[in-house]
């Protein structure tokens, strides 16, 4: 198979246990090259754990991670060059200014000074951060922090972008800008994986989707295949279950004085 026919990301039998709790129980997932892949699941489904193992931030107990056919955990340095990562729930080196942080990410990936400078400037403008380029990241708002982290993930023009909850706390205008950036990146041959809670967003934005719950993949494929006739949200609830009617909370009625 020619290299670009290989899936961008191929997870095979990933397992991860924390103490007694199995967070990821044998996940197989194929993300085709050039796809815009959505990863959805309820809280605690194992999305973050899966994405951490797929990006080299967490060692799997079992299983392999292939990025464009190369094994991440046996060739970490080569594979990490192809990966752009935006993890959720971690800090940044926030005593750097926005510009310094993006520069740092670029230099760590081996870019030269001119390339880093141009790209950092372009990213800051595209993400509407250019006014705050000289402000310390610690003083950014939550949304701005997400955006600068996204810039760090993209500065080395990776072949595969793995973004954990990239739209959380981002304002609607910036979110639309980010969607445009990601869409054109996919159009030019890149691959994007996003995890999200917002089904609507995934249905509109992504072409592929996987539903994860309890550490397993419940369904995966193109968005249309997975949702069938229903909306993605209805299909998701149907797959995951757990809907309860609101009638049990009859006392939660303020008007019944």
């Amino acid at each position, binding site marked *: 198979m020619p290299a670009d026919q290989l899936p961008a990301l191929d997870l095979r039998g990933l397992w991860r246990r924390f103490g007694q709790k199995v967070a990821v129980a044998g996940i197989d997932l194929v993300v085709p090259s050039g796809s815009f892949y959505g990863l959805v699941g309820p809280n605690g489904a194992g999305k973050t754990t899966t994405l951490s193992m797929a*990006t*080299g*931030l*967490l*060692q799997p107990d079992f299983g392999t991670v292939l990025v464009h056919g190369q094994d991440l955990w046996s060739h*970490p*340095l*080569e594979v*990490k*060059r192809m*990966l752009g*990562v935006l*993890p959720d*729930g*971690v*800090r*940044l*080196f*926030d*005593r*750097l*200014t926005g*510009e*310094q942080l993006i*520069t*740092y*990410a670029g*230099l*760590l*990936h*081996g*870019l*030269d*000074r001119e390339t*880093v400078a141009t790209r950092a400037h372009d990213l800051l403008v595209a993400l509407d951060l250019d006014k705050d380029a*000289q*402000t*310390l990241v*610690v*003083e950014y708002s939550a949304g701005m922090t997400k955006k600068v982290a996204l810039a*760090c993930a993209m500065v080395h023009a990776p072949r595969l972008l793995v973004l954990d909850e990239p739209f959380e706390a981002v304002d609607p205008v910036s979110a639309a800008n980010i969607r445009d950036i990601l869409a054109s990146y996919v159009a030019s041959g890149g691959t994007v994986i996003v995890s999200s809670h917002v089904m609507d967003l995934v249905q509109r934005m992504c072409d592929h989707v996987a539903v994860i719950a309890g550490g397993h993949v419940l369904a995966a494929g193109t968005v249309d295949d997975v949702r069938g006739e229903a909306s993605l949200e209805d299909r998701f609830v149907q797959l995951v279950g757990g809907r309860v009617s609101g009638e049990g909370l009859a006392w939660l009625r303020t008007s019944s004085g």
Partner: protein
Amino acid sequence: MVAHLVRLKLTLLRNGLRRSPWQVVGLVVAALYGLFAIVIVVAAMAATSVQVPDIRGLVTVLVGSVLVLGWWVVPLVSFGVDATVDPARFATFTIPRRSLLVGLAIGGVIGIPGIVTAVTALALTGVWWQDLDVVLVALPCGLLGLATCIVGSRATTSAFSNLMGRRRVRELTAAAALIPLILAGPLLSRVSMSGGMPSKEALGQVARVLGWTPLGAAWAVPWEVADGHWAGAAARFGIAVGTLVVLAMVWARALAHALVNPVHESTSTRNRGLGWFGRLPATPLGAVTARTLTYWVRDPRYALAIAIVPLLPVLMLVFGGGSKLLFLGPTAAFLMGWGISSDVAYDGSAFWTHLAAPVTGLTDRLGRVLGASALAVPVVATYAIGSALVTGRPEVVPALLGVSFGVLLTAFGGASIVSALVVFPVQQPGENPFQTRQGASMMAVTSQLLGWGAVLALSAPEAALAFLAITQHEVGVGWAALVVGVLLGGLLLVVGLRVGGRVLERTGTDLLRRILSFA
């Protein structure tokens, strides 16, 4: 409500222990340490209790005052106050403030320092066992003293943390506040040493005065009773109760303020350009170095870790100057070299940036060492050469440089390995420096003691040569110390970087996972 808060504290403690075996190790070491302290205190008090009443009073007031002062001041500078049960978490519950305060105060006794203090307070009461009615007075006064300790520590820390809500202010003040406190101990010991052992009369005077202050009032009441001075006892009891009331009010007000005014950042600092990133080579190694250098300047935790270094010359002079000044270079070298041992812990979860990038462990290690040496090398060289010149012995410069740089290089190497193996909870950037993380201090101590020992043992050759050169006035041996120090230290640094780098590549993800589990 009070019982709920105490139970919450116990549950948190138990769950903390379940989370990591390190917590258990830390607790066991702390418990042994506490037990040791208790044995010493009880033995000392038992010996005191058979002395004449004046001695008993003197000792109880002095010990009690030191205890109270310790609780008020020490959390400000080193350990912080145990924030396992953070009052801010109760902001949304309708708990009467009085219950909250009492519950938090009683919860404050649970823990090694609290238990040691409680036993000490009891022992101070027990000193009066020969006199039943004095014991009856001493018991409530001991409780009062204990409450003064706990409530006082909460009052000082919460009052200060409100004062220091702003990041810049907080960071600068925290660093500045250390200076007089570091100097206080040596200065006091210097003063007391210069006068020889202070006489019993002088101590008695000090104790009498302390008895009238908030520090000693509670402990002085039984003394007055034993002397038959009921009026004096009542007056001191009044002072003690008043102190506790004022402290409780300060704490309550600070708490009320903190609950509705969470720390808010409004200032914005502007910086120009790329700083070190623009000046150092545009490689991963240059980037890591530039980042480390930037953090040494911008992150006060690094500055605090070596805050003692600029004060070393003053300390050495206070401690007698003369030939002791020659220890300046090696001491600074050890402190600054070992300073990078908590680097990964200081990164916190931001360490993922290195894991996600194609950066070798060696690059990570070497970059951090280079960043730290930019500061350490000039300081150590200046100290080593300066101390030789000031003491009028320029011929010992090679020996001093040898031992200083030997220690610096060895410490860099050792710290490179240790920081790849062990992370422990530290204050995260921007966190209140007066809050400490659970288990932080003991875990840090247990893992670091081994490293210190190793560094000292491995730099023994150049240290021995330098000692010989300086004491025997052998200039040739001094040059040998320089050669051995630089060569052996350099070799150990290379080994440390290589081993540390390899270990880091293997343990990096595990370190990140443990850092995340602290949060």
